[in-house]
């Protein structure tokens, strides 16, 4: 169980305010009373109650009320009796103080007769108020405790969410590796014999690509420029593999290049477009990448003219993109896959550009 740390400034400040408040109450009831006396008396009394309240705090810290459930009845009773006891003791001490202050002489023996005579009236007048004070102490403790617990949980949830987003991002970059890598290596081993320059080119492109995926800092957001450069490394390799079957058109306006987008968000979508839109068609196809700015944010489009998206056939790549976007933008993003069989697929990504997660 976490301890509720002290906020002693507030604690004593509130007791002091209560003392001043009670003093005004006394002055209203006894307009003829001396103001200094009333002030001193009330501050002393409230100070005493504050000290006793510490016991209630200590008790609450060791036996906090966890819920309104019946199983907690023992704890409720404990705090009820403790607060009644503390209120009673507090009033007794307060009365004692008032007699001492009135007599003004600390050496003089206590006027026992006055004490016994006045005490019941004092209790009748102030006990209920005092009990409320003590309850307020216990309630404030629990209020603060619940608040801090809530805060801690919120922080923990945010931390988990960040970690999850990072894991998702890692999944995005790892998901693409194996087959792409093996096929590319196979292409290179063909090129070394027939076209050494081509092999050279492909190895350096692959190097760039691997540097970005394996070596990149674990940033969640990168500039559109960087994301595009990464995609172009990837596409350059695919273009050597698929040759004239793969045609690529990129329309990314220069003024959008500094906008921030989630890293590795485009590659799975491009890979999907190649897989469904191109690899399955002997005659190949055209891949179009477009970016534009709308009032709502940045719009990215990935379009192929392949076999068309079949709903319900979403693979790991798309699922990863979806959850990554959800984590980063919390529903403010839009992710649509439009297409019909035989007429290609258009993936539209709308990313907000304001606030956290955005650019």
């Amino acid at each position, binding site marked *: 169980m976490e301890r509720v740390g002290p906020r002693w400034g507030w604690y004593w400040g509130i007791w002091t305010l209560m003392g001043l408040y009670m003093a005004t109450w006394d002055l209203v009831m006894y307009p003829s009373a001396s103001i200094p006396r009333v002030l001193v008396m009330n501050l002393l009394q409230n100070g005493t109650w504050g000290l006793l309240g510490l016991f209630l705090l200590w008790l609450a810290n060791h036996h906090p009320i966890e819920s309104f459930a019946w199983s907690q009845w023992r704890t409720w009773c404990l705090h009820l009796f403790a607060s009644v006891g503390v209120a009673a003791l507090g009033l007794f001490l307060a009365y004692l103080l008032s007699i001492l202050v009135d007599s003004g002489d600390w050496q003089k023996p206590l006027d026992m007769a006055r004490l016994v005579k006045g005490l019941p009236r004092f209790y009748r007048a102030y006990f209920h108020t005092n009990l409320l004070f003590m309850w307020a102490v216990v309630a404030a403790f629990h209020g603060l405790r619940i608040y801090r617990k809530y805060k801690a949980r919120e922080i923990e949830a945010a931390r988990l969410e960040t970690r999850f987003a990072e894991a998702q991002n890692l999944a995005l970059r790892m998901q693409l590796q194996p087959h792409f890598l*093996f*096929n590319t*290596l196979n*292409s290179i081993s063909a090129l070394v*014999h027939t076209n050494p320059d081509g092999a050279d080119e492909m190895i350096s492109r692959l190097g760039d690509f691997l540097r970005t995926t394996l070596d990149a800092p674990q940033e969640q957001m990168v500039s559109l420029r960087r994301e595009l450069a990464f995609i172009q490394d990837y596409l350059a390799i695919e273009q050597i593999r698929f*040759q004239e079957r793969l045609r690529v058109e990129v329309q990314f306006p220069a003024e959008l290049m500094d906008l921030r987008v989630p890293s590795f968000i485009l590659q799975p979508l491009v890979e999907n477009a190649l897989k469904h839109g191109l690899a399955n068609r*002997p005659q190949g196809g055209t891949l179009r990448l477009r970016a534009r700015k709308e009032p709502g944010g940045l719009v990215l489009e990935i379009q192929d003219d392949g076999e068309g998206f079949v709903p319900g056939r979403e693979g790991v790549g798309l699922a990863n993109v979806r959850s990554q976007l959800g984590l980063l933008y919390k529903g403010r993003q839009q992710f649509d896959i439009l297409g019909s069989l035989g007429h290609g697929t258009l993936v539209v990504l709308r990313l907000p550009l304001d606030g956290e997660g955005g650019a």
Partner: protein
Amino acid sequence: MNLRALVVDDEMLARQRIRHLLRRATDIDVAGECANGLEAVKAIEDFSPDLVFLDVQMPELDGFGVVEAVGADRMPPTLFVTAYDQHALRAFEVHALDYLLKPFSPERFHQALDRARRWCLHQSTDKGPDLEGLLAGLRKERP
């Protein structure tokens, strides 16, 4: 008589690599190349090659689709060539002779060719490819 081989892969470079490696095998001729499954089915039915190098991931009809379309019984001895190792078990179920994982070394390729030669020589007496041995080899390749 030389063995006639058919090379099926949608990637030109992948076909080129096999063709290149086959140059060293003087007893094997490349009788044809196909860039997708449908072409492959047609070629197999047209001139029934002695040996097929078959990619798994292809447009129109994948490698297993080719075997299905031709019929496992009438399918010529087949060497699967792919970057996906998870298809290996299924490949042997359709009586693949071997399963080459891209990228493969020339040694591994010629080992597969030896297997194919033995198979073609002893086709009448042999019980079939040594599945256990092949799978064990595959496991060694990809720990």
